[in-house]
């Protein structure tokens, strides 16, 4: 690539922003007895280093599962073990069994932040850079601008480097991105291997498995099930099985081990109302108390059904017509669906930033905003405001998003043509969307100001958090509808337009 030095500068900017955010406070700082996610990470290093593998996921006198027990797949545990070895080399007190609980010091904070940065540097950032370089049909400058915007996305930075999330988000995201990259560039085996690693790092990635599965299946069908397609299918199956076996090897020795790990990974008794997240259930709950009406397992089943059903059309289409762009769009739709129904975590929609810059930027801003209650709890207001502004300015200047709000740019042309068959006066779509954007941004800014400056009334102490949820949820609902429209109408016009690679 000609402008390698510009890409280096972009990566350096990304690293600088990450490190400066990490100088702030982390979750649970100075808050005994449970502290926060930062302590959870440190605890896992303690557990994996001091205890044998068989005891990692079991409750015992040495390993109290109530105190931040391991609830992520084995790859996380191995990563913690690796970090623990380094910690032991620097200062064994950090991971001494039992005595290191709640250990907090400047040096330790530095160590933990460094591990996140290194993981980012090795896995996520190369994936982003490579992804942007492999984008087709755009100039080098746009590719670099793309990389800058993705790397500046505040949500990921604030969670990983500020809040210090339960797991190194960038690692699982990076692996998933390698997966997407591999599969889009026809390196199917590597892509599926990377994605399996992502799943084994964090079970949330299972959400993304449906589009992956459908896309790869579609590819096999395309090549013909009798010949090359079948070979590909077999190879893929072997890769997936092999990677799973490799990761879970120590836990396959006994049935009880495997079951316990699965129990820790999928705590079905936790339910849908984790900490007032911005999903549909919390918003719905305001009007109709589902939490009290329906029993837990019904809630779960309902969520799964809704998710699956809403995804089904897109996935079927993907199987029948596997295309890289369709794959990316389906992933996009998946994000919005997941957010809508679950939102344990969100995933940046950066993959289509270059294609639909306006909506993507809007979406990413809203997703960062939805984190507000969490960030305020960790005293991360300043970094979040600054990084959000930086991200917004980067997107605006790189993609001139405000000029790209015509119907064609928003990929809504075919949709509006169809609507105009019934309603000839439906010409105001792009202006409507612009107004909506303005309203949304103003609401978000106002809510942020209110949350920071005012105290909530006595009777409704969680007023602001719920309001944030509600507003974010409304936005996500809009995005859900939007992405569905794109995918559905893309299929109709796909046959008429030129081939999209």
């Amino acid at each position, binding site marked *: 690539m000609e402008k390698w030095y510009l890409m*280096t*500068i972009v990566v*350096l900017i990304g*690293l*600088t922003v990450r*490190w400066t955010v990490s100088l702030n406070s982390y979750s649970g700082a100075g808050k005994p007895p449970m502290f926060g996610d930062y302590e959870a990470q440190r605890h896992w290093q303690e557990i994996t280093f001091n205890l044998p593998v068989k005891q990692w996921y079991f409750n015992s006198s040495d390993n109290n599962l109530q105190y931040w027990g391991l609830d992520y797949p084995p790859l996380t545990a191995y990563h913690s073990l690796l970090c623990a070895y380094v910690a032991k080399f620097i200062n064994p007190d950090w991971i001494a069994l039992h005595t290191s609980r709640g250990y907090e010091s*400047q040096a330790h904070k*530095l160590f933990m932040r460094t591990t996140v*940065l290194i993981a980012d540097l090795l896995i996520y950032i190369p994936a982003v850079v490579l992804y942007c370089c492999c984008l087709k049909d755009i100039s080098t*400058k746009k590719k670099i601008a793309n990389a800058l915007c993705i790397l500046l996305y505040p949500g990921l930075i604030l969670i990983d480097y500020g809040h210090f999330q339960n797991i190194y988000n960038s690692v699982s995201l990076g692996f998933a991105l390698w997966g997407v990259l591999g599969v889009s560039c026809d390196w199917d085996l590597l892509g599926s291997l990377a994605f399996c690693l992502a799943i084994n790092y964090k079970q949330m990635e299972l959400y993304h498995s449906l589009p992956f599965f459908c896309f790869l299946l579609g590819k096999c069908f395309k090549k013909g099930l009798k010949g090359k397609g079948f070979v590909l299918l077999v190879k893929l199956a072997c890769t997936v099985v092999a990677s799973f076996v490799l990761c879970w090897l120590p836990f396959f020795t006994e049935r009880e081990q495997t079951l316990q790990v699965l129990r820790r990974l999928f705590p079905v008794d936790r339910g849908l109302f984790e900490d007032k997240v911005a999903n549909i259930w919390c918003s719905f709950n305001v009007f109709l108390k589902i939490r009290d009406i329906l029993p837990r397992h019904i809630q779960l089943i309902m969520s799964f059904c809704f998710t699956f059903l809403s995804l089904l059309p897109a996935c079927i289409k993907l199987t029948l017509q596997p295309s890289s762009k369709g794959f990316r769009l389906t992933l996009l739709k998946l994000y919005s669906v997941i957010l809508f129904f679950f939102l344990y975590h969100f995933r940046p929609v950066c993959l289509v930033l270059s294609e639909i810059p306006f909506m993507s930027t809007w979406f990413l801003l809203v997703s960062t905003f939805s984190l507000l209650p969490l960030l305020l709890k960790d005293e991360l207001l300043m970094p979040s405001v600054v990084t959000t502004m930086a991200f917004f300015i980067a997107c605006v200047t790189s993609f001139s998003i405000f000029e790209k709000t015509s119907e064609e740019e928003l990929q809504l042309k075919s949709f509006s043509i169809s609507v105009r068959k019934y309603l000839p006066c439906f010409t105001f779509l792009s202006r409507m969307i612009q107004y909506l954007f303005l309203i949304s941004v103003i609401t978000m800014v106002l809510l942020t100001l209110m949350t920071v400056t005012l105290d909530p009334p006595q009777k409704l102490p969680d007023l602001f958090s719920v309001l944030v949820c509600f507003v974010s949820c409304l936005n996500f609902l809009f995005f859900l509808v939007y992405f569905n429209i794109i995918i559905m109408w893309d299929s109709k016009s796909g046959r008429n337009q030129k081939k999209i690679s």
Partner: protein
Amino acid sequence: MLPRLVLNSWTQAIHLPSPPKATSEWTLDYPPFFAWFEYILSHVAKYFDQEMLNVRNLNYSSSRTLLFQRFSVIFMDVLFVYAVHECCKCIDGKKVGKELTEKPKFILSVLLLWNFGLLIVDHIHFQYNGFLFGLMLLSIARLFQKRHMEGAFFFAVLLHFKHIYLYVAPAYGVYLLRSYCFTANKPDGSIRWNSFSFVRVISLGLVVFLVSALSLGPFLALNQLPQVFSRLFPFKRGLCHAYWAPNFWALYNALDKVLSVIGLKLKFLDPNNIPKASMTSGLVQQFQHTVLPSVTPLTTLICTLIAILPSIFCLWFKPQGPRGFLRCLTLCALSSFMFGWHVHEKAILLAILPMSLLSVQKAGDASIFLILTTTGHYSLFPLLFTAPELPIKILLMLLFTIYSISSLKTLFR
């Protein structure tokens, strides 16, 4: 952190109704305008944290104080941004690249606004250099735009904010005298004595006098002028700053040390005669050299004057307009840095920032600029010494260095 505490205590001291005596180790040692600036700040500080202003609260530090001081630096940088904007107007885009990022104006603005040295000195190490350099760049820009009176005015004001800019005062003086007070040249470029304009000289003198009167007047009336000068020019402070600025005297000291070690080994020197104080102990103090002759302030002054003489001569005998002035200014700054008494390593910024203006216009200047800026910035590393700051300074340094090298290379392809 230390300069922040210094400024803290000044803010406190100024808030008192009467001139303070030395109440702490961090007493005021900048000229009066800076003191007034701190006074204004202290009035705003009231709204952030009242405790900050209590004179007895030495070394006071709280998150609100921090927030206030950082925001004040950022706010004052507005002047710096404006000055950069004015400087960019003086650059002609002869080599017009097709894209924005290849234009000299864009490169210059990035080189100035993202200057690594300024970033870490102002915003991490903490000082208010941004707006002061803004004043300097503004005065340079005005001289480029042939608005000499304004340029002189800004520089006079600047001098009374921070007297370190005396380093470059000879350049200003000679340039204004030669190119402004003598309104025309002979065809071969040499001086035409009968074009001397008394009006201009007097107006310049008036400007400087008025500014100085405004600044030093109150202290003259209070009979405190000697005290002010002794605080501004503390010659008791020693040849080198606590952290040696990488100038000639650092080499001189090092040579002296090496020679003394050799002398001890070879028994030329008597161990009892060696002074115990170490020059690098980090405290500001006086010391004697052991082998080489000791250096007095007068010696450094003479060395500095000898060093700036060539450029001053060129400026007088062969003036080349504002660009020649800028070159002379940079050279004055560098010479003073090399041979000055008690130079801070931050003073290298005085040479780097004006040089940026030259670097986007000629390839030769660009290569010198790259050497100067890379080594100058690297020499600032000891300013940030805590572990968390290590990645920041490395990353920022890499960012600036890679950008400057690649953009200037592209510009002068």
